[in-house]
């Protein structure tokens, strides 16, 4: 394990490091490198805060610059065997991509407007058509966006690439979603395997293609085992409630039983979901090969649950602070009314709040504050958290096999990333 710990100390010159251990242990032919994430949350908070401040005067346009800065942070602090990733995309590429996506959305908007006005009876159905369409496009956009990011990621001076067809991927994802819904989730491992295989099999590092050895059976046990457990808990709870009703228990305690059992099912379901997703991620990431080199990833479910708990607690504190500040602002406004001669009663305040423009400004301020706080916490706790956990749990076996990779490919076009942005497809 000495080579692992040595390479995780990123300050040690990477090449010297390699020589060092080759000299020390000439027998060791296969070297495993650890991935490390060395970013700290405090400087990242600085980036996010300054970014949020700039979002207001720029009417949101700054988000393209903020996303780029965030990616520089994530990429630049992710160290693989002594060299960090480098993100080469620019804010203007994101801006142009978004404008292209708007052009795609305009016809949908106009069509929707026409339906609202001319066929109001159909407008409900129009949304029923639109939602699956959005789901389809999210798959398309997600794939294109992945290509955008990969082709703008350098490691050791060589870029990643993605081949394959985004339409094919979107179609597969859409059909598998239907199958998963139809089988009450039982088809999910097949969907996961199919989509991972397509994504990974079409990923390249320079001129070397990634390979994927994951099978459905790789994840079948954790998935179907957990599925059975959740189904059993659900069935037992339902049976309990049914028994209770059949015994003629009084309705109040029957309601209480339903509430408690629902809570139980929710908690079991949540834990099961975390367990299953971390297992799938770990096992499928570990099924990735790059020529003779390979990936080995372990994502801890406990760590993820702890992140989520932190997030919920912080969100609660933030919401409380938000409410207190809000009440203070209201109090201040009532005091202001007193000064201008009002009685300072809540009725006065209510009337004041009805005063058009002041209400409007207060509402917008609250709205933006809430939105900013929410985004800040999600990014700081969840996004950084997951990246950190995934990166620190990752190793690359036989990394020296990558020395013979040659640079290839160019930066991908912009439209896909913009579409992902427009469709709110969450990604780093």
């Amino acid at each position, binding site marked *: 394990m000495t080579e692992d710990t040595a390479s995780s100390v990123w300050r040690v010159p990477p090449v010297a490091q390699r020589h060092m251990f080759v000299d020390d242990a000439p027998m060791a032919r296969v070297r495993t490198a650890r991935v490390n994430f060395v970013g700290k949350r405090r400087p990242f908070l600085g980036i996010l805060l300054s970014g949020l401040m700039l979002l207001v005067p720029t009417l949101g346009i700054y988000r393209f610059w903020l996303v780029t800065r965030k990616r520089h942070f994530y990429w630049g602090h992710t160290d693989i065997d002594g060299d960090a990733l480098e993100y080469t995309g620019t804010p203007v590429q994101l801006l142009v991509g978004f404008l292209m996506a708007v052009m795609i959305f305009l016809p949908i908007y106009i069509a929707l407007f026409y339906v609202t006005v001319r066929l109001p009876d159909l407008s409900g159905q129009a949304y029923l058509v639109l939602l699956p369409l959005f789901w389809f496009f999210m798959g398309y956009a997600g794939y294109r966006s992945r290509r955008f990011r990969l082709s703008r990621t350098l490691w050791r001076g*060589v870029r990643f690439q993605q081949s394959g067809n985004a339409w094919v991927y979107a179609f597969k994802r859409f059909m598998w979603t239907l199958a998963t819904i139809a089988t009450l989730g039982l088809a999910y491992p097949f969907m996961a395997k199919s989509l991972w295989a397509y994504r990974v099999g079409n990923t390249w590092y320079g001129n070397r293609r990634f390979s994927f050895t994951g099978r459905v059976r790789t994840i079948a046990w954790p998935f179907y085992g957990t599925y059975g457990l959740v189904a059993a808990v659900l069935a037992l709870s339902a049976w309990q409630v049914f028994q209770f009703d059949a015994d003629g228990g009084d309705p109040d305690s029957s309601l209480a039983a339903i509430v408690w059992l629902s809570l139980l099912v929710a908690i079991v379901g949540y834990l099961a979901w975390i367990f299953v997703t971390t297992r799938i991620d770990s096992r499928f990431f570990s099924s990735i090969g790059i020529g003779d080199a390979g990936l080995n990833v372990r994502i801890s479910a406990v760590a993820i649950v702890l992140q989520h708990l932190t997030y919920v607690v912080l969100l609660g504190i933030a919401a409380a602070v938000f409410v207190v500040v809000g009440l203070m602002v209201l109090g201040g406004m009532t005091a202001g009314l007193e000064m201008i001669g009002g009685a300072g009663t809540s009725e006065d305040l209510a009337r004041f709040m009805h005063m058009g423009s002041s209400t409007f400004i207060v509402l917008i301020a609250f709205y933006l504050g809430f939105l900013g706080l929410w985004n800040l916490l999600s990014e700081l706790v969840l996004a950084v958290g997951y990246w950190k956990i995934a990166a620190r749990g990752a190793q690359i076996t036989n990394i020296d096999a990558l020395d013979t990779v040659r640079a290839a490919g160019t930066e991908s076009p912009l439209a896909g990333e913009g579409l992902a942005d427009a469709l709110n497809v969450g990604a780093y």
Partner: protein
Amino acid sequence: MISGYFLDGEWARSRDVTAHLTGSPEDGTWTIIDKASGAHLAHWPAVELVRKPARRDVMRLSTTSAPLGARLVLFEDEDIAEALRLMPALERQKRRQRGKQAGLLAGSTALLAGVVAAYVWGIPLSAGPITAVMPSEWETELGRTVATQIEQALGDGERMPACNIAPQAAANLAIARFVDRVLEGQTLPFPVEVKVGRSEIANAFAIPGGRIYYTSALLDETENSDEFAGVIAHEIGHVVHRHAMQNIVTAAGTGLIIGFILGDMTGLSVAGGLGTMIIDAHNSRQAETEADVFAAEAAKRLGYDPLALATLLQRIAEDDSGAAVLALLSSHPLTVEREQNLKRLSADAPVTSTAFSDVEWQTVKTMCRSRNISGGADASDSRR
């Protein structure tokens, strides 16, 4: 001499190197030499040096003409300090980059600000013309669908029964006469129909296609004919300005603008929904003002009390009888601004008469008390 590692942009392998400057920092050349073999790996002109994004304690250097991924990476503090001292091009490039990015950011912000400004000020100006271009049959047909939905909502699942379906009934004739007087000199693409219907929700509103609803619960709260007339004239104002249709046009525009600002074009996110709601509420306030102006002018012209509308809203706002009246207030909030506006509009307007004669008003006021009700809403279509 600077130490670091070098990536040639061709092979995925790093080599420990030293970099040496020959000539002046301004226009000399940096030679990158492999530590192990002593081979010259690259010659980089000092003027072409650029700094690539990296974390704070690492410096990634390249040049404008080197292969895309070629990097000289420095990770020791003293090497980075030395590079900053010996590579004046980096500072110039940083300033140029900052200026360029700031310019792009400012430019695109100005552009978006232009679009938003055009929207905020343009919508009141352009929603009218856009609505005017749309065929009036569209609005009439849309109105028919909206009527069905609204009447079902008000009538508790079944269609709201009209208080008096006979078009020739005294109350309906009185209302129709009043509508005619208010509309004198106006040209409208469709007739204005007032329907007084039985509902427990106190409200009055206009829907696309010229229909105006006035509920029995609101009629119970209405104390005199001027209050009734004030509300009806206000709603006629909405019809004359075609606000119902404009709202649809405006809402579509708001969705687009919010999508632009938040970057979520689906409008499905919570943030998008909230933002749209706030802006639409702001827009509807402007529509209320326009309808108030219309109502006040009608009152002045016909000589009845223009302030009666405000009196009614005021009384309902103070009456704490619960949720039944909330619908009216939420669609017609009596803000301080609005009240003052109404007062200003009705200044020096002598009240010379009432909107309805006493006899007329009595028939209207009591029209929902008789048993003579009907479940069919379409009966009112023949009226006006």
